[in-house]
């Protein structure tokens, strides 16, 4: 067989596989959107869910998902930023840092159910945090940390060494060079990573079922005192998220319009994740252009 023909066959096969993947994806997303979109309304998005009667919404679940996401990022971003900076700029190449890197690899490949059960045993039971937003946020942090750390480390590593030398040769301290030169340049990549991880966290269910719990307690959306037990901001209340809600309706939902609620909620989830992905691209590109554009001010 001549090489030209081989080349042609290989390319055709690769193309076919790629097209297949795209078709499957388009079919899935299209189906979820087609089934779910008709059920989405302002009422659906804002009103509380109902367990036994039709006409419930997903308001609290949507809020819980967003609130949990925010808390997770607040906890995991500073930690992974510190770890990422340390690993890329300061860590010596020795046994200890190799072990740290391996630990991060292993952590990132843990199934999320395992993370959830671990969180259940340690935080919910051992530390007596109960089914709560806080337990959920910590579990999600475990789930999120390795990927975010890797992303930040890689973004920082991708900044050219020339920039480090320029800073140091100008008499800047190492910390200042990292802080003022390297981090701003790595920012577009870091932001993209954060938003993408936000999408993954938003859609996560398995890690939350046994940590943040499966019930959406009645919260009073006019009470914003985080220490009050009926406040939506309360960290110690159980909080069913959108993804967990979908899982629950499908496994044990008994409301008459369960299929419709599930379809609508799935569509909302998919749209949110799509928005996160688009936002990641947009923000990353925007920041990059801003950093390198003709006008800086």
């Amino acid at each position, binding site marked *: 067989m001549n090489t030209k023909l081989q080349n042609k066959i290989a390319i055709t096969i690769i193309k076919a596989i790629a097209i297949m993947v795209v078709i499957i994806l388009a079919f899935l997303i299209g189906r979820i959107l087609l089934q779910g979109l008709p059920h989405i309304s302002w009422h659906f998005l804002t009103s509380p869910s109902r367990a036994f009667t039709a006409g419930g919404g997903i308001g609290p679940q949507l809020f819980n998902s967003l609130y949990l996401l925010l808390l997770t990022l607040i906890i995991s971003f500073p930690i992974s930023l510190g770890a990422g900076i340390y690993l890329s700029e300061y860590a*010596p*190449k020795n046994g200890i840092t190799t072990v740290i890197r391996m630990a991060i690899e292993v952590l990132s490949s843990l199934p999320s159910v395992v993370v959830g059960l671990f969180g259940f045993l340690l935080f919910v039971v051992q530390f007596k945090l109960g089914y709560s937003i806080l337990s959920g946020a910590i579990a999600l942090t475990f789930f999120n940390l390795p990927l975010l750390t890797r992303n930040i480390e890689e973004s920082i590593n991708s900044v*050219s060494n*020339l*920039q*480090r*030398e*320029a*800073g*140091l*040769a*100008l*008499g*800047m*301290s190492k910390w*200042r060079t990292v802080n003022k*030169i390297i981090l*701003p*340049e790595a920012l577009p990549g870091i932001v993209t990573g954060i938003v993408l991880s936000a999408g993954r966290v938003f859609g996560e269910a398995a890690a939350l079922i046994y940590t943040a719990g499966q019930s959406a307690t009645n919260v009073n959306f006019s009470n914003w005192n985080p220490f009050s037990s009926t406040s939506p901001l309360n960290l110690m209340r159980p909080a069913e998220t959108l993804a967990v809600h979908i899982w629950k309706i499908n496994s044990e939902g008994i409301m008459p319009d369960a299929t419709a609620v599930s379809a609508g909620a799935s569509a909302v989830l998919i749209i949110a994740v799509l928005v996160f992905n688009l936002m990641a691209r947009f923000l990353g590109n925007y920041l990059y252009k801003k*950093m*390198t*554009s*003709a*006008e*800086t*001010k």
Partner: protein
Amino acid sequence: MNEFITTRDVHLYYGSKEALRGVNLDFPDKGVHALIGPSGCGKSTYLRCLNRMNDLIENVKITGSFKINGEDIYGPKTDTVELRKKVGMVFQQPNPFPFSIYENVTYGLKLSGIKDKQLLDERVEMSLKQAAVWDEVKDDLNKSALALSGGQQQRVCIARVLAVRPQVILLDEPTSALDPVSSNLIEDMLLTLKEQYTIIIVTHNMQQASRISDTTSFFLNGELIETNETKHIFLNPEKQETNDYLSGRFG
């Protein structure tokens, strides 16, 4: 000659590899001094000892004595930050920060705590003029330095170094990534700067070395073979190796 920079018995090891094997080399105050030699002979390594950039590399061992104006570069009391303000460096690839031209040039000054806008403005204009790039950028100082051509970027990088008023400027093949016109601009600029600064330049371009430098040092395999006035080195070198290298027999 009254020596401004003196280095004695310099050995440098990258791990177990000896990259400098006992170099003794001095530079007088002011003027342009060229370091030449085949690729891998240790020119950059030697140059980077003078502002301690080699400290950044893991597993480097440096021995010998290095003095600038009598002060020990590797002394226990030497502050690398202060040292690098005194000994500026320009690299082979232009490496402006991803900020505006103005910010690039004032960065080192702001670092030393200078905030007076008028003084900053003055220094920017003066440094960019010295670096022969003022006329090209004076109307868009707020433009990102990354939007400039490679040759302009390199001159802005030189201005960035000049702005902090160093005594010594190290240049590691500063024109090898540039077009001939930009290279000529930089060569002419170095010729005017040499009245005020001690300039040490690594170059692979023999014409460049002979055109702009006052003294030339020839390195080979981590050793200094010969150092002398540039005319002398190019017209009648004392060592056979130098002669072979200059006549293109190796390297």
